[in-house]
């Protein structure tokens, strides 16, 4: 058995996540979220022309749109997807 040891010193500054960290989070999302929501973190702007992304984001109205069908996602379903992902990666 390892000695329990002490807690860590407090953190002074927290740097923003690097591109690699962001890539890892997005990969984790895509691998563990409910299937329909794959790509949600890689949405393009609703104003994008010729987007190939699965989802578009309407910043002014705070909503995601499924690009192929035009369906507006509810905030509630985005929250549900987040809960499913969190539970899966947390081991619940």
């Amino acid at each position: 058995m390892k000695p329990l040891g002490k807690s860590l010193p407090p953190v002074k500054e927290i740097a923003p996540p690097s591109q690699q960290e962001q890539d890892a989070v997005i990969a984790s999302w895509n691998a563990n979220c409910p299937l329909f929501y794959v790509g949600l973190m890689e949405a393009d702007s609703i104003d994008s022309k010729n987007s190939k992304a699965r989802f578009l984001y309407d910043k002014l109205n705070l909503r995601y749109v499924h690009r192929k069908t035009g369906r507006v996602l509810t905030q509630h379903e985005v929250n549900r997807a987040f809960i499913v992902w969190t539970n899966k990666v947390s081991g619940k």
Partner: protein
Amino acid sequence: MNLAELATALKEGRISIGEWESAMRDYLRSQFTAAMELSKGGRNFITQSDWGYMGSALKKQYAFLGGFAKDIANNPTAWLNGRLDARMGLYKESAYAALEDFRRREAEAQGYDEEMRLLGATDKHCDDCLAVEGRWEPIGTLPAIGDSVCITNCKCEFKYRRSANNMLFAPGLNP
């Protein structure tokens, strides 16, 4: 390692408190990053200011975590059992609270000036949640998700609107 595996590793003495705390910090960081991504419409829309805000929120969680780590180190008998898993679960819940908080901040930035709390689809509502649900109030004035007695067990959420008096936005643009 996921949270369950991390708890087991600490209880079985395979990792130290410092290693456990470092892994928990990494876990929280990835959860909060995901919450920020989703609240903003994805990575393409996040600014340095947003990351700074996330950093402040994370710092608070790290401080709570540090206190928890000290408690475990000072009294391992009390903590290296099922209590550890239960308390670690609260950190998982903090990510949902962060998602709602980040979205609230974005709503305000986009000119939404009123909010309403909606009860989640569960029977786990505490009196705090029941007391504040279902009415429009100025944005930022209702208790944040996670500030109730139930923490986030209820899975309540906010919705937002631009009020009729908001001169910045013309009728027809309001949701």
